């Protein structure tokens, strides 16, 4: 279980998140939903103890306090995919994967890359280098599959991508659940998320949790907007 207790998060001395209390269980898909600027990405990054954020409160992973643990150590258990992944020209994707994967199986990786719609030469390019926005999302999904972390946080991975990728994403989200992972999807995409087998929806507005419950709430938000909160 991933447990967040009494979390307040500050960035540049400004309070971004207030009194966040959440529990995430294995084998479930969670949707974090909310308007722009509500603190969704900040919540995800604070779980990984991003250096740019100041925190109060506690975060536990399987009853172990990870609140102040280094990002690179937490990342051994939690995969986070950035909304806008950075391009790293000086490091080839192949070299990166050889370092971070327990088993670098080139044939398998290329096959998976092809299935996800990545360019044929992606292993020989810089990490995310010269990939389109949609291709960067595909690479993020590839990483989430290959790294096999127990918790996966996907930050707007469903934005700026085509229907073919969305279908693949839907498939893998279900797979991750079957593999008993905690899956957290941050999204704005009503149409896509309504098709998912979501266990719990978390609505975040202005840094506060306004709702935790089932996905029926999405229809109400779609009709009336966030003002219902």
């Amino acid at each position: 279980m991933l447990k967040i207790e009494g979390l307040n998060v500050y960035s540049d001395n400004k309070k971004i998140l207030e009194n966040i209390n959440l529990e995430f269980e294995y084998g479930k898909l969670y949707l974090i939903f909310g308007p722009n600027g509500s603190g969704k990405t900040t919540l995800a990054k604070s779980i990984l103890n991003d250096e740019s954020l100041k925190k109060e409160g506690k975060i536990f992973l399987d009853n172990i306090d990870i609140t102040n643990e280094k990002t690179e150590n937490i990342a051994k258990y939690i995969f986070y995919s950035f909304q806008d992944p950075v391009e790293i020209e000086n490091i080839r994707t192949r070299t990166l994967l050889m370092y971070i994967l327990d088993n670098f199986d080139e044939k398998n990786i290329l096959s998976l890359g092809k299935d996800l719609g990545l360019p044929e030469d992606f292993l020989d390019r810089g990490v995310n280098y010269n990939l389109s926005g949609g291709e960067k999302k595909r690479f993020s999904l590839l990483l989430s599959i290959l790294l096999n972390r127990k918790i996966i946080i996907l930050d707007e991975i469903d934005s700026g991508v085509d229907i073919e990728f969305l279908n693949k994403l839907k498939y893998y989200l279900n797979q991750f659940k079957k593999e008993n992972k905690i899956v957290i999807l941050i999204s704005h995409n009503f149409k896509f998320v309504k098709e998912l087998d979501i266990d719990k929806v978390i609505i975040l507005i202005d840094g506060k949790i306004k709702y935790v419950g089932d996905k029926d709430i999405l229809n109400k938000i779609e009709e009336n907007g966030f003002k219902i909160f």
Partner: protein
Amino acid sequence: MDSKFFKDLFKKYYEKIFDNYKIIEKEFNINKDQYIEIDLDKNIYYNVFNINNSEVKIKINNNDISMIYNEFNIIGKVKINILINNSGNLRIYNLYKVNNNSSSDSIEKIYNKNNVVLISKIFIDKNSENSEGKLSQYLLEENGISILLPILDIENNKSKGFHGSKIFKLTEKEENYLKYLSLNKEEIKNILMREFNFI
């Protein structure tokens, strides 16, 4: 050959200490692929490489105050790959003289942990037609100060010169991305080194 020659070459980067240095001259005639390793000491090294249709790999190691001048006379199709491994205070001048109907593809990799001034000149004289000189520089620094001064001196308008350089460094954002993939500082440094050595 005296210190004035080197003063003129290096100008403001020349230091008085070099006046007292011994000048060691050597000539290499290269007609097949070769690997050469040079360890520098407190001397001035003057090397001439006459290279004919070959590939040469040169590794230069320095951990003192040294100077090296390399003149490459290029005939035919030549590839030169130089790795400069510096933890001292180094002045280095590489002159690539590309002859008529010849081409050079040169890579200079500088791994610098202290101070280096590298002047690299591609020279094609007015009589050398259909020639091409290409220079690619890659810099990996570890708390060092590097000054790279490339010069293209192409006197014949039927010949070409190219230069490109790249610094092997990661931005904070790039480092952060790698941390999110569970890499620590040491691992990030090792990956960068690995990529640098791959070139």
